[in-house]
C-alpha cells in the first residue's frame, strides 16, 4: 500500500551552515497516528516545514501519498493539511472568512466551502465566533481555528506541530478526542509534541529525533516494551526520613517521604511486599510512575548526545 508519507535521505542545511537534518529516512503508513518527538532544535519543525513546502530541502525525497514533492507538488499539497506551531492567520479577518478563503485556495467553490466551513466551525466549537475577527479569540480558540482551517479541504494527511501548546487540560483532552475521531475516520495524523503524555495517549508509532537524526522509529508498544525497568511509587502511612534497606530492590526516598522502587520486568512484585513486611510502617497505596515515555525519551536523547 502507498505510504501516507515517505521521507528518504532528507537533509537540510540552512543558509548559515547549520545542518538541521542529516540524511533522515522514515515513512508513515496510511491511517497511522504518528508522533515525531525530539527536544527543541532537534529538526522536527524543519521536517514538517519541508513536507508542507514552507522550507526548501537541501537534498532527499519526500512523497505524500505517492506524490513526489519535486514532481507532483500540486497533487501532494492537495493531500495535506497543516496546523503550524505559531498562529499564522490574518488577525484582522473574520473566523468564517479565514476558512472560506483557505478552501478557495484549494479551488473549492464558495457554496461548498461555506458548508464545510460551517461543519468544522460547529465541530470545533467556533460556530458562535464565525463573524468575530480572529484576533479576538482566546489562545485555545485560535488553535482550534488553525485545526479547522487545515481540515476545510478534507486532507488525507494532517500534520500538527505542537497542537496543544498553551492549551488548558480540559481543552487538550477534547482536542485529543477530536483528533482520535478524525483518525478513526481514516485521516492519517502526524504530530510533534512536547507533551510526551500526549504521544503516549494518542499515537501508535513514534519516531524520536535529535540533532537532525532519527534515534528511534518504532511502534509505541515496542518502544515501551523496550523499557526493562518499571518504577512504582509507594505511598506510606507516614513520611520516612531515612532510606530503608530493602534487600534485592533498588529503593529511593521521594520528596513526599514515600518510596520509589525500580522493578525489573517479569520480576515478582509479591517478593517486594515480603521484604517490606518487617518494617513498622505500611504501604497505603501503590501506583506505576507515569510518563514512562518521557523516561525513555530522555534516555535516548541523552545517549544520543553522548555518542
Amino acid at each position: 500500500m502507498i505510504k501516507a508519507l515517505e521521507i528518504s535521505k532528507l537533509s537540510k542545511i540552512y543558509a548559515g551552515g547549520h545542518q538541521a537534518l542529516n540524511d533522515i529516512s522514515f515513512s508513515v503508513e496510511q491511517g497511522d497516528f504518528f508522533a515525531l518527538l525530539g527536544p527543541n532544535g532537534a529538526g522536527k519543525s524543519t521536517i514538517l516545514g519541508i513536507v508542507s513546502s514552507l522550507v526548501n530541502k537541501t537534498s532527499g525525497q519526500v512523497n505524500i501519498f505517492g506524490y513526489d514533492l519535486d514532481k507532483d507538488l500540486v497533487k501532494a499539497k492537495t493531500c495535506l493539511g497543516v496546523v503550524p506551531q505559531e498562529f499564522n492567520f490574518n488577525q484582522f479577518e473574520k473566523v468564517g472568512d479565514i476558512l472560506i478563503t483557505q478552501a478557495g485556495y484549494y479551488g473549492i467553490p464558495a457554496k461548498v466551502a461555506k458548508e464545510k466551513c460551517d461543519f468544522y466551525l460547529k465541530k470545533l466549537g467556533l460556530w458562535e465566533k464565525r463573524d468575530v475577527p480572529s484576533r479576538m479569540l482566546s489562545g485555545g480558540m485560535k488553535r482550534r481555528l488553525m485545526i479547522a482551517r487545515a481540515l476545510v479541504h478534507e486532507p488525507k494527511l494532517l500534520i500538527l506541530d505542537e497542537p496543544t501548546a498553551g492549551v488548558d487540560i480540559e481543552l487538550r483532552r477534547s482536542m485529543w478526542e477530536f483528533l482520535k475521531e478524525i483518525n478513526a475516520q481514516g485521516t492519517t495524523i502526524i504530530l510533534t509534541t512536547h507533551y510526551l503524555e500526549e504521544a503516549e495517549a494518542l499515537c501508535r508509532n513514534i519516531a524520536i529525533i535529535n540533532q537532525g537524526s532519527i534515534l528511534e522509529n518504532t511502534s509505541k508498544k515496542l518502544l515501551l516494551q523496550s523499557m526493562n525497568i518499571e518504577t512504582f511509587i509507594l505511598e506510606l502511612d507516614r513520611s520516612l526520613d531515612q532510606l530503608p534497606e530493602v534487600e534485592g530492590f533498588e529503593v529511593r526516598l521521594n520528596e513526599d517521604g514515600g518510596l520509589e522502587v525500580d522493578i525489573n520486568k517479569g520480576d515478582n512484585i509479591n517478593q517486594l511486599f515480603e521484604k517490606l513486611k518487617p518494617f513498622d510502617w505500611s504501604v497505603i497505596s501503590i501506583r506505576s510512575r507515569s510518563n514512562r515515555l518521557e523516561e525513555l525519551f530522555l534516555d535516548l536523547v541523552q545517549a544520543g548526545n553522548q555518542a
Partner: protein
Amino acid sequence: MTIQQLWVAFSTIFVKEIRRFTRIWVQTLLPPAIMMALYFVIFGNLIGSRIGNMGGFDYMEFIVPGLIMMSVITNSYGNVVSSFFGMKFQHSIEEILVSPVPNWVVLLGYVMGGVGRGLAVGFIVTLLSLGFTDLSIDHIWVTISVVFLTAVLFSIAGLINAIFATKFDDISIVPTFVLTPLTYLGGVFYSISLLPEFWQMVSQLNPILYMVNAFRYGILGVSDVDITHSYLMIIGFIVLGFSYSLHLLNKGQGIRT
C-alpha cells in the same frame, strides 16, 4: 488543478484583496481623494489661474490626467506592497504556500487586487476633477488601456518590493525615494517642452513620463512623447516584471526558508 479550480483560487485572492482595501477605506480610498482635491484647489485653481496655458490647455485641464495617473500609480503599488508584506509579517502567506494554488495564479490575484484599488482611486479622483473642470475624453480606448496597463505594472512592482522587504521601512523606501520623485518629474505638472534640451533628454529616461503622457494623450489628445513608445515601454516592463516576480515566487525568495 482544473481550470475551474484555478478560477476559484484566483477569485478568492482577488476578492480578499478588494475586501481588504474597502474594509480599511479610511486608510486606502479617502486619503488620495483628499490629497488630490487639495492639488486641484491649490495647483489647479489658485496657482493654475496665474500660470495660464500649458501644452495648449488650461493648467487645470493639463494636470488632471497627470494627477489621476499619479494616484493610480501610488495606490496600485501601495496596495500590493502593503498587503503582501502584511501577509509575510503575520505569516498568513503560509496559508497560500501550503495550498496547491500555482504561483502564477497568486501573482495574478495580487496584481489584479492592486489594479482594483488603483482604478478605484483613479475613478474617485476623476469624479472629483469634474468639480473643477470639464473632462472630455479624446481617445477612450487609449485612456482605458493605458490606465489599466500602468496599474498592472505598478502592482507588479509593489509585489517585487514586498517580496524583498524584511521590515516595514523597506516598504516605504521605494515609494518615498524612487516612485514619488519619478512621478513628480514625470510630466504630471508640466510639459517637458518647457525644460532645456539636456533635461528633456534626461526626462525621457523616466518611464513614468511615458505613462503620464500616454494617458494625457487619451484624454486631451496631446503628448510630449510618441504613444507607440509608451505602449512598448509599459508592456515591456510588464513582461519583465511579471517574469521576474514569478521567478522570485517559484524560488521562494523572502517567503520560504
